C-alpha cells in the first residue's frame, strides 16, 4: 500500500521518522509553511525557513525514499503582527512558481481577528492569481464559526471551491464543508483533533469523495505514522484496497495536482542515494550510505 501525507511538518521530525514512514508505505509528503511554536521577529527568519522547505528538507526526505513538497504562506497566528506580516507577504510570491511548492498555505483563522482575515483574504486572492490550490487551517477554538467564516470568505473572494482544502475538520465542521465544492481535510492526532476510529466512522458516513487524511505531525505530541495507521484501521473495518488508496493516496495527489506541478503518475518512491550531498552536507552520521540501483 502506498500513502501520501498531505500535511506534515517534517522539519521538526527526525530521520527515524522518515525511515519509519517509508517502511509503512509513505512515498510523498506535503509540508505546509506554518509557525514555529513562538513568534518570529524578522522577515529574514521566514525567508530562511521557506528556503529550507524548498531546499534541505526536500533533500533530507529523498535520502530516505520519500518525495517532499510544500505549501507557502503566512500562518494566521503570525498575521497579527501586521508590520512583519506585510514584509512576509512581499516575499511569498517568489516561491510560488517553484516546482515543489504545490499550494498556498496554511492560511486561515486562529483568533479570528481582523488582521487574520485581511491576510487570509489576500492569500486566497494570491492563490487565485497564481492558479494554485489553497490549504486552509481551521481554528482550534470556535471551530464552527471559523469554518463558516472560512467558507463565506472563499465565496466572497471567488476562488474556485475545488481549489480549496479546508483542514482539521471534525464531526461538526465536516458537514459544512461537504455542502460546498471544497476538499475536506482531517488531521489524525494521538489525543485531540481526530482519531483513526472517528475518521473511519466519518468515511463510512460520508464516503471518500474529496476526503483527505493527514497526520499534521509537528514538534508537539503527534504521530507521523497516522496516515498508514488510518489505512490499517480502514482495512480492518472492511474498506477495500481501492478505497483506501483513493482516500490516502489518490485524493491528496489529485487535490495538489491542480497546481499543474504533479500528477498521480509522478508520485513514486524516489531512488535512495545517500552518497549524495546537499551543499556538502549529508544526513548521515558515519553510517554506510544506502545506494539503491
Amino acid at each position, binding site marked *: 500500500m502506498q500513502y501520501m501525507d498531505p500535511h506534515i511538518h517534517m522539519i521538526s521530525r527526525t530521520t527515524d521518522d522518515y525511515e519509519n514512514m517509508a517502511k509503512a508505505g509513505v512515498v510523498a509528503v506535503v509540508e505546509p509553511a506554518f509557525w514555529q*511554536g*513562538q*513568534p518570529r521577529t524578522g522577515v529574514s527568519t521566514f525567508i530562511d525557513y521557506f528556503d529550507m522547505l524548498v531546499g534541505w528538507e526536500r533533500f533530507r526526505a529523498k535520502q530516505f525514499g520519500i518525495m517532499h513538497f510544500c505549501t507557502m504562506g503566512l500562518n494566521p*497566528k503570525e498575521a*497579527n*503582527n501586521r508590520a512583519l506580516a506585510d514584509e512576509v507577504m512581499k516575499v511569498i510570491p517568489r516561491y510560488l512558481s517553484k516546482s515543489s511548492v504545490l499550494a498556498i498555505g496554511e492560511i486561515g483563522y*486562529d*483568533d*479570528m*481577528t481582523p488582521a487574520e482575515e485581511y491576510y487570509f483574504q489576500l492569500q486566497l486572492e494570491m492563490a487565485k492569481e497564481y492558479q494554485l490550490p489553497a490549504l486552509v487551517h481551521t481554528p*482550534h*477554538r*470556535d*471551530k*464552527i*464559526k471559523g469554518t463558516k467564516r472560512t467558507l463565506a470568505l472563499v465565496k466572497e473572494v471567488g476562488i474556485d471551491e475545488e481549489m480549496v482544502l479546508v483542514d482539521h475538520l*471534525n*464531526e*461538526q465542521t465536516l458537514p459544512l464543508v461537504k455542502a460546498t465544492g471544497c476538499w475536506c481535510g482531517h488531521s489524525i492526532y494521538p489525543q485531540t483533533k*481526530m*482519531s483513526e476510529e*472517528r475518521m473511519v466512522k466519518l468515511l463510512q458516513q460520508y464516503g471518500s469523495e474529496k476526503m483527505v487524511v493527514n497526520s499534521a505531525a509537528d514538534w508537539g505530541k503527534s504521530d507521523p505514522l497516522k496516515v498508514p495507521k488510518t489505512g490499517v484501521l480502514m482495512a480492518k473495518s472492511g474498506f477495500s484496497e481501492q478505497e483506501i488508496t483513493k482516500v490516502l493516496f489518490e485524493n491528496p495527489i489529485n487535490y495538489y495536482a491542480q497546481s499543474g506541478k504533479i500528477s498521480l503518475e509522478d508520485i513514486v518512491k524516489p531512488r535512495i542515494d545517500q552518497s549524495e550531498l546537499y551543499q556538502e552536507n549529508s544526513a548521515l552520521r558515519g553510517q554506510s550510505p544506502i545506494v539503491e540501483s
Partner: protein
Amino acid sequence: MDISISQLSNQLPHNIAVWIDQLLECQPLDKNKEGSDNQLMITFSSLPLELRKRGYKNMASQYYCHFSLLDICRIYFAYHLIAKSTLPMLMVLIKLADDEEKTSIAKGLSLFDITGDLLENVIDLTRTNCIELFAALALNNPYPAKNFPEHNFNQLVLKALFNDLNIEAVDQLPLRRNEELSRMVVDYRDERLAANRAVPVSLLWAVSS
C-alpha cells in the same frame, strides 16, 4: 483578585528591595540610548542568579498568594522601572523577556498598566503556546477583565478551557459573561461530546444565565 504594589513590596525582604532599587539607579532609562535594551535585559535576567547568590534557593515556588519570590522581584523591578522612565522601556522588557520572565510580568500587569496602554502587547502575549505564561495572563489576573475587548476576552476564556485550566479563576468572569461567549462554550461542549471527550466542569462558569 486585586493586590496593590505596596502589598507585594511588603513581602520582599528589605535587603532585596534595597538591592533592586540600586540596580534601577544604575539602569540607563533612555530607550534610544545605544545598548540600553541590552543593559536592561542583562540586569533583569540576572535577578534569579543574584537571588541565589544571596541564599534564596526556592525563589520560584509559591511565596505569597500565587506569586513566587522571583515573581515579586520582577514585578517590583518592572513597576519601579515604569515609575522612573517611560512606557517604551517596559515594552522593551516585555518584548525581550523569555517566557518565564514574561510569566512574572504578566502577573503584575494590572499594577504597571493602569490605563491599558499595553493592551495590544498583552493580547499578543495571550497567543503564546507556553501554558504557564497563558495561565498567568488568564487566571487570577485582573488585567483582561479590566481591559480586554469582548472578542479577546472570549478567546481568552475559550483558550483557558482548551488548555484544561479552571476558568473559575478567570477574574471577574461572571461580570464579563456575554451571549457570544455562551455560544462559543456551548459549541465547544458539543465538539467535545462528539469526540467522546470529557467536558470540563468549569465550562458552565462561562455561560450566561
